[in-house]
């Protein structure tokens, strides 16, 4: 039986030999997931009894996971580079007949990088939330959901097969839904949660269908099995799988055309925006594409689509970011744009994988820092989000200003800060990929750099410089230590992490066993980082973007309400009419189709189903008639039964 031969377990990896984990830390890697999962369970099941200490438990457990991940990193580093891929069988769910359903984890440089980012930044944001949510009476529930998210995200990145990955994928979707709608008393939050859920369904469906195609084509859903067999499948099949995976990635990572939910998702509490909608969950799409690298290698058309989607999104997100007055929405546009950079790089093949992941990690730090900074500002300003009501906050909130400022410098690519190192890598890789496509992608990335400088400078000026435009009852003040401390740590990361990763292509070499090496190896030259044409051009774009912003917002007085927009600004402010487009192209026709289907359903399908249902019910009523309650009838039935039994045996005589 075909089904019996299926195995979900990882047997061998494409690029490196997967060895069985032997060390105590790696072989118990399931603890990484178990810690936060236990936290969520205790906080949700424990109820009000855990109110007083629940948030500390909720913070301690991701920290424990982080500690475990660091130990795991050292155990991985202790192995020879080509043996750094470890299969960790967790347990066999069941095996019946020839069918084995196994659950396993894969720890390699790629997954451990993510695990460190998720647990590290995640823990910092948990600490921050202790202060940020101090006055919320549902704080315990908040921490339970955050823990649930961390556990699900770890399942997603540590899975060794697509089904387990999908489980984590749905888990983070659920946590995201719960957290966006955390303040469910606000209509806008509830609607935003629903929207995120629905848009993500589209992407999830793509991923699910991709997994099904893999299963029917290759008979396995294990990463190793699929990647080994991908060469033997037809080009059409592989391209279809690639495009469906991309659809899944677009949903989760808010890439065009499934970007519309991310800006609304800012209705969630700010730590959620920082953790889920900036640093980790939204980057899951990039992880998926890099992890499924062998599939995209075999499907050049799908791979090119990835790069194009990334380039388009990086520009679209930047344009949206330029026009938003809500500080969180401006940052959300920026997140879209930065993930666009990563997607672009991931669409370039092995040459771009390391660049994508490096940028993903530094972005996790500086963007989380920026969001926490925004949260700190809101915290001091009575939850005001309109930047036109800020201004001159640098004196009132010196720590927030300093940390936000470092994050700002990092994201615009100020030389030698984290963002510069990793964004340069992407721009360089885009140009290096060659051909007119490569030039097009490179130019898009450069234009994006200019736009980034513009909108981030705008945010910076509107918030911290210029006149005070505060509401009358606003008394801005610095946030408590529990909030500023994580911001300081993240700011430190925004400064040095890029150099640590990129210098000597250290991180790229670390990732090679997992994602494969580019065909022509590049030597690292520090001098070239400054003198190459692309880097000089990027620097120029930075200066131009920042200068334009300075002239528009630093020199002129900022009106308290947004001025009447021109067509371009209106286009940007309305999120490129993405919602209108969705509404016109999808929602309205969708509603019409739904109405038609519903009519079809009631008349034809229900007719059939009800017909079956009614006939079952009628026969049920009929058969019940035999249940008279009289022992004599029962005995007679038994006699007939005995006759049937003997008759069927007598046939064998």
């Amino acid at each position: 039986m075909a089904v019996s031969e299926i195995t979900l377990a990882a047997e061998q990896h494409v690029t490196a030999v997967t060895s069985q984990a032997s060390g105590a830390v790696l072989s118990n890697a399931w603890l990484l997931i178990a810690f936060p999962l236990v936290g969520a369970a205790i906080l949700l099941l424990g109820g009000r009894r855990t109110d007083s200490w629940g948030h500390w438990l909720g913070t301690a457990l991701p920290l424990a996971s982080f500690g475990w991940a660091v130990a795991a990193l050292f155990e991985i580093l202790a192995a020879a580079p080509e043996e750094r891929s470890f299969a960790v069988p967790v347990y066999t769910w069941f095996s019946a007949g020839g069918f084995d359903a196994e659950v396993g984890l894969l720890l390699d440089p790629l997954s451990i990088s993510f695990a460190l980012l998720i647990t590290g930044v995640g823990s910092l944001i948990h600490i921050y939330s202790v202060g940020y949510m101090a006055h919320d009476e549902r704080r315990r529930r908040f921490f339970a959901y955050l823990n649930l998210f961390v556990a699900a995200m770890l399942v997603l990145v540590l899975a060794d097969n697509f089904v387990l990955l999908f489980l984590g994928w749905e888990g983070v979707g659920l946590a995201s839904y719960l957290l966006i709608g955390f303040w469910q008393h606000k209509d806008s939050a509830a609607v935003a949660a629903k929207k995120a859920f629905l848009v993500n369904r589209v992407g999830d469906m793509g991923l699910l269908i991709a997994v099904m195609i893999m299963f029917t084509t290759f008979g396995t859903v294990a990463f190793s099995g699929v990647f080994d067999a991908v060469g033997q499948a037809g080009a059409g099949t592989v391209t279809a799988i690639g495009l469906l995976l991309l659809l899944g990635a677009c949903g989760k990572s808010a890439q065009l055309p499934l970007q519309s939910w991310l800006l609304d998702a800012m209705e969630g509490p700010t730590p959620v925006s920082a953790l889920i909608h900036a640093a980790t969950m939204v980057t899951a799409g990039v992880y998926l594409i890099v992890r499924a690298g062998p599939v995209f290698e075999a499907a050049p058309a799908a791979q090119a689509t990835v790069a194009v989607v990334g380039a388009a999104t990086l520009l679209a997100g930047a344009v949206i970011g330029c026009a938003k007055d809500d500080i969180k929405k401006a940052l959300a546009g920026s997140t879209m744009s930065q993930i666009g950079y990563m997607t672009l790089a991931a669409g370039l093949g092995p040459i771009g994988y390391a660049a994508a992941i490096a940028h993903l990690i530094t972005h996790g730090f500086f963007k989380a820092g920026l969001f926490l900074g925004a949260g700190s500002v809101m915290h001091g300003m009575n939850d005001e989000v309109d930047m036109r009501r800020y201004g001159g906050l640098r004196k009132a909130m010196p720590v927030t200003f300093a940390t936000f400022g470092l994050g700002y410098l990092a994201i615009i690519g100020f030389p030698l800060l984290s963002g510069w190192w990793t964004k340069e890598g992407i721009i360089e890789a885009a140009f290096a990929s060659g051909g007119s496509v490569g030039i097009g992608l490179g130019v898009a990335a450069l234009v994006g750099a200019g736009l980034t400088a513009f909108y981030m400078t705008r945010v910076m000026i509107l918030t911290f410089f210029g006149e005070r435009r505060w509401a009358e009852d606003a008394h801005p003040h610095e946030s408590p230590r529990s909030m500023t401390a994580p911001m300081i740590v993240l700011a430190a990361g925004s400064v040095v992490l890029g150099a640590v990763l990129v210098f000597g292509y250290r991180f790229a070499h670390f990732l090679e066993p997992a994602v494969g090496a580019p065909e022509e190896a590049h030597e690292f030259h520090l001098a070239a980082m400054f003198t190459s044409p692309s880097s000089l051009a990027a620097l120029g774009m930075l200066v131009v973007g920042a200068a334009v912003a300075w002239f528009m917002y630093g020199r002129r007085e900022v009106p308290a309400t947004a001025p009447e927009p021109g067509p371009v600004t209106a286009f940007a402010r309305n999120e490129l009419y993405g919602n209108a487009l969705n509404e016109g192209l999808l929602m309205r026709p969708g509603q019409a189709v739904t109405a038609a289907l519903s009519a079809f359903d009631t008349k034809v399908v229900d007719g059939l189903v009800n017909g079956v249902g009614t006939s079952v019910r009628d026969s049920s009523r009929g058969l019940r008639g035999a249940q008279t309650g009289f022992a004599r009838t029962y005995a007679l039935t038994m006699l007939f039964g005995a006759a049937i039994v003997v008759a069927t045996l007598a046939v064998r005589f």
Partner: protein
Amino acid sequence: MMSSAQLMAAPAITQNPPEIDYWLLSPMLVVFGAAVIGVLIEAFVPTARRRAVQLGLALAAVGAAFVLTILITGSLPEGEAGVGVAFGSVAVDPVSVFLQGTVLVLGFISLLLIAENRSGESAFAAQAAAVPGSEEEREHVMAGSQHTEVYPLVLFALLGMQLFPAAGDFLTMFVALEVMSLPLYLLCGLARRRRLFSQEAAVKYFLLGSFSSAFFLFGIAMIYGYAGSVSFAEVAAAVDEGGGPLFPDGGGRPLLLLGIGMVAVGLLFKVGAVPFHNWKPDVYQGAPTPITALMASCTLVAAFGALLRVFYVPFGPSAADWAPMLWVVAVLTMVVAAVIAVTQRDIKRLLAYSSVVHAGFVLTAVVAASPEGLAGAMFYLAAYGFTTIGAFAVVTLVRTHENGPEANELSQWAGLGRTSPLLAGSLALFLLAFAGIPLTSGFIGKFAVFEAAMAAGATPLVVVGVLSSAVTAFFYVRIIVLMFFTEPAEGGPIVVRAGAFTGSAIAIGVAATFLLGVFPSPVLDNLVPQPGQQQSESLLSAVEGER
């Protein structure tokens, strides 16, 4: 080799008393001893202390018997299928030990339910001998009389259930059947409320049970006529040779086929397969709910254990003869019971029909006639036992009003999920397990039995099983919808606070249903013969006996 006929006639048995390995029989002896002591307690211990003493003794005996059962697994001989004790009349092998252990655990949980005593009020009649509604009955209720005989009766029933699947010959099996059944007939008539209804159920169960026992006994006579022995091993040898010592040239097949058929009727009645199921809904509904839980779990395990042994050991060589018959019965069971269940309005009747459908699912594994089928059936029975006790435990808690009778009418359960989320949530888990949803024990059980049936080429049977599952899922889910998505009815039922006993029964049910669904390997792997391990029906010993 002596034939049984000679053996029985020979006076040798008194001159050379056989050696009996009492250690291997100790789990049964402990339960038996406790039951006998329980009868004496009724005579000698003051009324006030009887319940505590009886309950303590019963729980201790069942617990000790379980521990002994575990210890015995260690003393089973390596490499051999099993040991025949006392002239081979009791088979001690992995299958019987597993089933006995299961019966004891499930019996222990049932005892917890039976012992539940809410403000001096148990599930049992104050004085069963008093005419329902009479002045005498009222006096006994006021005086707070209790029937502590319930405990020794349950112990006797459990003894029968231990012996039933472990019997090594047909006569022992028949004795076990009666030891198991007679106490149950009595227990069914002891309900505290709706007593006439309960007594009616008991009488029906008794009449029909006797009827089926008669079939069973006549079947044994036929088999004896064919093989000249009642020992499973010798019958198996005779069937294998195509005729026993009485038919050296072959022949005698009508006797064999008739015997198989009549023995099958007796056993299929006990498992409640269609068309021998009529008693189940009436009896399950009328009996005190803790006794229903006992019957739905332990009796089903024991009866299927016996059925498996009879069809795999003595009748094993003629599987081709009886397989078509079981096909017919399995299909009838899965289809008819699922269809009737759809329109049930009483929760206990619904669970009764559900039990019938599940019997059909297990029958598909019996049809497979393979080690995998055996393992699948055993896993299914254990998993189902825990879940069904939990479900009936929930039923005992939902009352029409404080100190009122159980609210068994399903319409009364509307909105229960709003008022008692924990209880309704537990029941929802049990129902999902019945429906076979992944991550519950029910899914693994169904997968195991259907996989075994498929491997044995019974694909059409599996198709019917899956369709039947779909129908059953409909009415399970309907209850969940009713509990969670319907507004509570005016004057809806109230949920009495679970006592420690009922609470732990539900908790064990939830834990087992969940654990066996998520982490079934430790149990399943021990049952399924691993590749390279001794194959065939090796788990079941065709015991030759110590002659």
